[in-house]
């Protein structure tokens, strides 16, 4: 079982397909869960403390907006943990924690420079493309075993 990071990191389709094929999908909600359900909430309501942007300094410089560093404090450790990646380019709609374009550029760069196997795809728009999409993911994940 390999740990596979998916991009967009909040994608339902990608994380479900990875889990379906017997691997572990690394997604942002898991990182969010650790913060918001911790026994000690230091900074209510979301428990995002000034420590988070500091953790993000590992991935982005101090002059980078704190929003990028805050997001990287969640996504950065996931990238470090990843053994493979599936990237869907230009989904056209990214919101919430995946809604920052500069963070997304940095996330894709860090994944690519990590040297792990990466599968690049685009979201399907019709049935033949959907079949190819699922087949490519299946072949890629089978090769990881």
């Amino acid at each position, binding site marked *: 079982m390999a740990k596979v990071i998916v991009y*967009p990191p*909040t*994608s*339902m*389709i990608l*994380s*479900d*397909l990875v*889990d379906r094929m017997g691997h572990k*999908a690394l*997604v*942002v*909600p*898991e*990182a*969010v*869960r650790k*913060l*918001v*359900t911790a026994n000690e909430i230091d900074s209510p*309501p*979301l428990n995002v403390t000034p420590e988070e942007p500091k953790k993000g300094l590992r991935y982005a410089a101090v002059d980078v907006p704190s929003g990028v560093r805050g997001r990287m404090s969640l996504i950065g450790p996931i990238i470090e943990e990843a053994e493979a990646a599936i990237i869907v380019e230009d*989904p056209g*709609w*990214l*919101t*919430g924690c*995946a809604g920052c374009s500069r963070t997304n550029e940095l996330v894709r760069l860090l994944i690519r420079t990590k040297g792990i196997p990466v599968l690049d795809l685009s*979201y*399907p728009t*019709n*049935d*033949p*493309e*959907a*079949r*190819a*999409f*699922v*087949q490519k993911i299946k072949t890629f994940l089978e090769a990881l075993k």
Partner: protein
Amino acid sequence: MPVTKYVITSPESNVLPSDIAMKIYGSKYDVTVKETCFGVVINGEEDVINALIKEIRALDPAGIFFKDRGFPPGDPRRCRGRRGGGARPGFYMIESESKMLPMISRALASEGGVSEIPEKKKPLAIKRLEEIIKEDLS
């Protein structure tokens, strides 16, 4: 550690969110269930949820999808009843991907090989556009 998952049904699936909720109510598992318009939210211990996922998926293997969620169901920090209405921030991503689910379900259900995909139309090359402009203006 308790985990929370979304169970999302494809719009073309014959399984309704209420069917899934009833299945969970009738099961032996000690989990919290919240029914929504697109599926259900389940919360419980990780091993219990993993066992439950297998049973729910068996209802419609190609038409039911799962997604992790950070907040527990009904959490006042996310529940729209406490925030004065409006969609929960993460809903837009689910809504966008839900439109694609029927295609993905059909692809998962089909066992046949992948047929050749016709190439997408590419935009006109800039050089060719320049040539057309010059031809028309000369």
